[in-house]
């Protein structure tokens, strides 16, 4: 019952002939921004295509807000998908591209015009809307496809590499848009190679490798599950050497390294919760002036390195 506002993958596998797309995927995605992270060929796009019914699972089932693509009329009223295919119907202008896709939905002409204008405004393409898409730059094509996928006000928005080809300004605008949509209660599922930007807006993250889901959940939750890599915490305080000496006596503290400026230290611990409790005690006992405490590797990029093994920035 409670799955009716979630995206649910139940034991989903997809094979293209003998080639594995994804295997035994079990996921429940709540509203908010979810990022799919993984190297090329890890199954991100397959997972998105399965979610939107462009491909059918070889095994298992996918439901989105309790619906399946077998009921396309209701399903695609709620779902918008900006796929990675950089292709368009021949000869259309940006405006026609969105307008036609709304007409196909069976909407009345005035409503189609209104929604088209609104979507184009939302991606800041007003000046170029009357030009043919074939003459657009890569970033403009990306934005017009994004506009097309949000024009009908979906409750689930699936975006495959939506930041590809965007200039820094457009990228920042798009990220702000995704964040706003996530806060409005939409499901926003994003795959992106730009990990540090995805990191800023993701409520949930799904790590994929070779067709398998390696880890999933809230970033902090996933980080705490990665036991073999001690958590790194940056502490800015007075008397960091005192703090370091106190920490060394604890079993869960693997390393405490003083900063070069002498105003803080980097701690590696296998139990972050224990560390925070201990830190409170030491601060009170030793009368330390605490300036800042922040996890140093509690982000998508670090998790990518730990779980998948390569440098996320170079994906």
């Amino acid at each position: 019952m409670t799955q009716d506002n979630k995206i649910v993958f139940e034991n989903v596998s997809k094979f293209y002939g003998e080639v594995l797309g994804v295997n035994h995927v079990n996921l429940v995605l709540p509203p908010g921004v979810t990022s799919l992270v993984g190297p090329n060929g890890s199954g991100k796009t397959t997972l998105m295509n399965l979610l939107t019914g462009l491909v059918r699972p070889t095994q298992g089932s996918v439901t989105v807000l309790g619906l399946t693509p077998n009921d396309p009329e209701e399903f695609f009223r709620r779902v918008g998908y900006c796929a990675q295919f950089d292709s368009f119907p021949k000869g259309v202008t940006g405006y026609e591209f969105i307008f036609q896709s709304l007409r196909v939905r069976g909407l009345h002409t005035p409503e189609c015009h209104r929604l088209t204008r609104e979507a184009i405004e939302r991606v800041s393409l007003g000046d170029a809307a009357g030009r043919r898409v074939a003459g657009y730059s890569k970033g403009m094509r990306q934005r017009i496809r994004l506009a097309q996928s949000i024009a009908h006000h979906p409750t689930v928005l699936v975006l495959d590499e939506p930041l590809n080809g965007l200039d820094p300004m457009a990228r920042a605008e798009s990220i702000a848009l995704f964040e706003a949509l996530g806060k409005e209660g939409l499901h926003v599922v994003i795959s992106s190679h730009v990990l540090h930007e995805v990191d800023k807006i993701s409520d949930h993250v799904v790590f994929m490798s070779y067709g398998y889901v390696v880890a999933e959940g809230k970033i902090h939750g996933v980080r705490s599950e990665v036991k073999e890599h001690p958590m790194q915490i940056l502490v800015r305080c007075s008397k960091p050497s005192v703090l370091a000496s106190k920490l060394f006596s604890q079993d869960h503290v693997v390393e405490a390294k003083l900063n070069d400026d002498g105003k803080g230290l980097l701690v590696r611990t296998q139990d972050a919760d224990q560390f925070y409790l201990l830190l409170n005690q030491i601060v009170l006992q030793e009368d330390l002036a605490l300036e800042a405490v922040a996890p140093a590797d509690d982000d998508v990029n670090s998790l990518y390195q730990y779980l998948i093994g390569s440098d996320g920035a170079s994906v």
Partner: protein
Amino acid sequence: MTTLTSARQFFREAPWQQWTAQLLAIMGIEVRKNFLTRRSIWIYLVALGPLVLIGGHDFLDTRWDAEQMRRDTEILAGIFQLYYLRLGMFFGCMGLFTWLFRGEVVEKSLHYYFLAPVRRELLVLAKFLAGTVSATIIFGVAVFLSFVLLYLPYGESGRAFVFSGPGLGHLAAYLGVTGLACLGYGAIFIAFSLVIRNPIIPGAFVLLWETFHPVFPSLLQKLSVMFYLKQLCPVAIAPEGMMALFTVVAAPVSAWIAVPGLILLSAAIMVFACTRIRHTEINYLAD
């Protein structure tokens, strides 16, 4: 009883208005695409080719008497049955209908339709109707112009043949057969395009089937589009020599059976196409 009740309920509750709006929207997009794409140029040339022949005949011939008109009527029947029905419309429909879905796959734009809240069966139907309308207009105009160009030089006697004689009936029959041919061939080729990537092999098979159907058993003959169309043509061609293969109707049926027969055959093929599209996946890389 239960099936009947659920069918009734379906027809009562189905969103007909929504479906009609979607059907018309898709048809509008597709018809425009069919007419304006550069790929259609060769179909225009195939359709309008005989006009050059008839125009040359008008220019060079000087006899415009009743005997010549009788011969020209037979020539038009020959052009229609042997060129338009067997070649022009066949290949024109093959090019047009197979491209309705294949074109979208090649241009990687089919997913936009698949991501719209449209039943895939409705998408097939809309594309099929758009193709039928486009092909019927192209070949209908060509046949109409052929007819006009053939009888125009006859002046008063030509007008009498058309308006007081059988001429107008012939024209109506030619145009009707043109529409039915586009419907029948269209259904075959749209279904093939959903099953096989390269339309040339199935196209060759259908061409052979349509050509040699007169030698098949009676039941198999009825699975041929030409079987129905031949007997709807207003002027028979003399079955002489090898031509008999193209003109003879071994077990003729009346127009009252031929027309619904062809529509039923097309509908059956379209049901298959609709079943097929439900399982179609977007995998452009494989294409």
